[in-house]
């Protein structure tokens, strides 16, 4: 089953789409941070993307089955690591999200995301049968629930939520029965008040202001309002590079990171929005095409899980700017400034290419 792959088999389209989006992101980071205290961020992002590119090429050479085989201990290390972070970690800005390695900081949860994708792919690849059973729900519920709780405790609810689409896509592809959906929907409805109880006050506020955006324009919906103003004021053609007043004057919060798309839409207008949405759409459809043509179920689940995370993050991040979703701290893959997110995305792309390059069954 191990196949020999050649460099020209690399998925250049996938890589090209990802690099195009990353390049747009870098230009926007430059545009929104130039001549500010954050001006150094663009150079760091270039390094991260280049590093990510090299890593993805390297990973694509590795047979993904080899990686899947490492899952049991990778998963164990991840859980231990997340637990240790909660116990031993030094809080940064009130959260224990960051791991410092040699002067660089990483979000441990981004790496955990990759491990979950692999773990879910390995799990479903191994099991037989046309439909999932309640046993699968319990087993995966525990396996995924553990890291979800650990990440949610950091607290980083946004990232914890990104684990769910991975599992959901897995179940969907593995075969769901109608009764599964019905029971899950009921359980979910029952859990809502309990979940509310566990939310931190600022998280509740975000939800309230999502439901009633006009309630208070200075508080938590301020960010959402300012992002909307930025996007709307961009118009059709945009205000031009480095000319977004909302982002450059600080009205849009973290306009180089989580809110980068608001800054981009302000400066590049609807034309830019359309272009980037098309690029993301092409990227996601191509990933799913790969899932269809993958050489085996493991590869298919891996691609589907990765696509599900990316889709979730892109949709929630771009959607929350226009009020489709409550404001959550989810970065926009490939565009938001940040090393952890870039590394996760490029490693994921590397794995995806690894699957694609080995799709031809001899």
């Amino acid at each position, binding site marked *: *089953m191990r196949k020999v792959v050649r460099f020209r088999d690399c998925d250049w389209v996938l890589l090209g789409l990802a690099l195009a989006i990353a390049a747009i992101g870098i230009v926007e980071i430059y545009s929104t941070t130039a001549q500010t205290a954050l001006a150094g961020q663009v150079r760091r992002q270039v390094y991260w993307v280049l590093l990510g590119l090299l890593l993805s090429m390297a990973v694509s050479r590795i047979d993904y*089955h080899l990686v*899947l*085989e490492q899952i*049991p201990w990778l998963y164990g290390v991840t859980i231990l690591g997340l637990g240790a972070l909660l116990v031993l970690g030094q809080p940064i800005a009130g959260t224990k999200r960051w791991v410092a390695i040699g002067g660089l900081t990483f979000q441990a949860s981004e790496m955990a995301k990759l491990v979950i994708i692999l773990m879910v792919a*390995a799990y479903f*690849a*191994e099991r*037989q049968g046309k439909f999932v059973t309640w046993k699968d729900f319990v087993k995966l519920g525990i396996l995924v629930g553990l890291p979800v709780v650990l990440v949610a405790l950091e607290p980083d609810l946004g990232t914890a939520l990104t684990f769910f689409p991975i599992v959901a*896509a897995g179940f*969907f*592809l593995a075969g769901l029965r109608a009764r599964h959906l019905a029971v899950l929907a009921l359980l979910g409805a029952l859990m809502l008040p309990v979940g509310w109880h566990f939310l931190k006050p600022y998280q509740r506020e975000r939800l309230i202001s999502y439901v009633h955006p006009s309630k208070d*324009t*200075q508080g938590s919906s301020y960010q959402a309002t*300012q992002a*909307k*103003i*930025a*996007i*709307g*004021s*961009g*118009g*059709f053609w945009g205000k031009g590079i480095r000319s977004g*007043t*909302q982002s450059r*004057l*600080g*009205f849009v919060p973290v306009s180089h990171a989580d809110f980068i798309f608001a800054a981009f*839409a302000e400066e590049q*207008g*609807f034309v830019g*929005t*359309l272009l980037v*949405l098309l690029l*993301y*759409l092409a990227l*996601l*459809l191509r990933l*799913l*095409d790969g*899932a*269809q043509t993958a050489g*085996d*179920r*493991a590869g*298919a689940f891996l691609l*589907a899980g990765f*696509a599900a995370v990316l*889709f979730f993050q892109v*949709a929630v991040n*771009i*959607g929350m700017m*226009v*009020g*489709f979703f409550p404001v959550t701290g989810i970065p926009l893959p490939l565009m938001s400034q940040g090393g952890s997110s870039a590394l996760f995305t490029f490693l994921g792309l590397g794995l995806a290419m690894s699957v694609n390059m080995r799709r031809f*069954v001899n």
Partner: protein
Amino acid sequence: MEFRFPEDERFPAWKIAFLQYVIAATFLALLIGYWRLQIGQHRQYLDQAERNRIRNLPVIAPRGRILDREGRVLADNFPAFSVLLMRESPAALTPARVEGMARGLQLDPADLQRLVERTTKLPRFQPVVLKQSATMADIAFVESHRVEYPELDLLQVQQRSYPKCAIVAAVLGYIGEVSEEMIAKPGSPYRPGDVVGRSGIERTYNSVLAGRDGMQRVIVNSRGQEMGSMTAINALPGNDLRLTLDLDLQMAAEAALGEQPGAVVALDPTTGEVLAMVSHPSFDPNDFARRIDQETWQNLNSDPQKPLMNKAIQAHLAPGSVFKIVTGTAALETGTIKPNYTVNCPGVITIYGHTYHDWVYSKGKGHGSVDFHRAIVVSCDVYFYTLGKLLGIEKIAYFAKRLGLGSRTGIDLPSEDPGLIPSPEWVRRAFKRQWWAGETISVAIGQGAVAVTPLQLAYAIGGIACGGVFRRPHLAFRDQLLALGVNPQEETTREFPLRDDTVDALSRGMWGVVNEGGTGAGAHDPSLDIAGKTGTAQVVSAELQDSARKAEYKDNAWFVGYAPSTKPEIVVSALVMQGNHSTVAVPIARDVIKAYFGKKASRKPPPDQLQTQVRVMSQVLGALPGEPGRAPQQR
């Protein structure tokens, strides 16, 4: 560990396709969301973005300075800070936040809340002034709360200052925030928080003194810090205004009046220029330049001595014996008597069945036989009672009015009192009754309902001394007003020609008051040629005065003096309220006149080139003997 991967179990193709459709549909929804914002509501969001970053800051135009006739500064400005309220997002001004601001700025929360409510109708880009002359603590509060209260900002302004404090206060008036009635007037250029002249010169010439505020558009970031500036509308500073006042005379009048309540007015009767105008007790207009605090304002308003009242133009008081000049003018001009008309004064006279006392009667004597000249010099009441009976009220009232009493002089100050000259027509209108013949007798000596202001008396006596030429009193130079494009009042001179022998008899009489041991002998100064007339005006009847002995029942003391007696250059009206006897008013007018001629004598030549200086010096030296040192004419 080895995984088994069953090759044969592929997903049904529809599952992947379904996921792809879900993704495509979601992206379409996102695109529609962005279309709505970026195309549908673009205008509205662009406006909001512009309002976010652009702040319209008023640039306050400095008010023009007010100068005395020699250019000395009476009202000036100094840089200060005002706390501004930006109103770009009025919804954010919740009561709790307004209260927080009020506490930080040490303002009354209820006051501030009212101000905020009052301004809701204004355009949003217009900021309003919350607090003038911010203290260091206020500035620190605004700077350190940029994030909590981004609505607050500081504005550099020019704050009014009055270096002479209370001395010129009555004339200059004060400034203050524009009242709601003024804003409500149709076509009003004012906005809440604007500062305008509320009284005095500041009010009359507000349009001259007030500049036009400019507007600066600055770019601010989300923390309210200024990041740059855009187009600006420059502020137009107000014009300086030079007054006819002479600060030296003003100081002399101030010193002469001392602590006594009353007023002093000095006019140049040949031009109508007001040289000095003092009213006591006074106030410090600097208190008003900042927003005046409630306590000071209440104290000023509840003070029975009415410090905010300019008594020089607003005191409505009986002139007493000064009015005898009016009665005398009427008697001579109508030919009712000749100056040699003589009356025997036993100290008391009975007219129309009523007994009238002379002011010397309490000393148990009369003035004996007095002619017109003597009657003025000793201020014989019996003589003028007699003239009153001979003239009748109609003639007295006619002359009083033509001589400038009973109506506003038209000075360029707000709220001038017109005074009152009673007449049968007036009692019919005001009291629906007939004129009592006995009232005429009181009016003849300036009692009864006769009421004048210190300015009116200076105006009337000055005009009579000038032969019946009355120059409208004014504080601003007509030429300057014309140059500034302000239309000064048309009528500046009113003539009511008096016969030379009438003027001669009156002025010789008034010269005698001062220089022949008359009632104004206290003003006698061999170096000065002062003439004048005293007055001691009863506030209540003599009986009540004796029984009550209250301070407010004390007589008001008057003296109106002018010099030189033949060709007056200055006329001074002095009023000491509750002064008890005219003798207290006499030296006040004398001191002012003395200061006037003292200054004239010592006037230095302009520091020009040596040659002209020498030439001017020789002229001055040559002119000296004929100038103020000349001997008073003997009569």
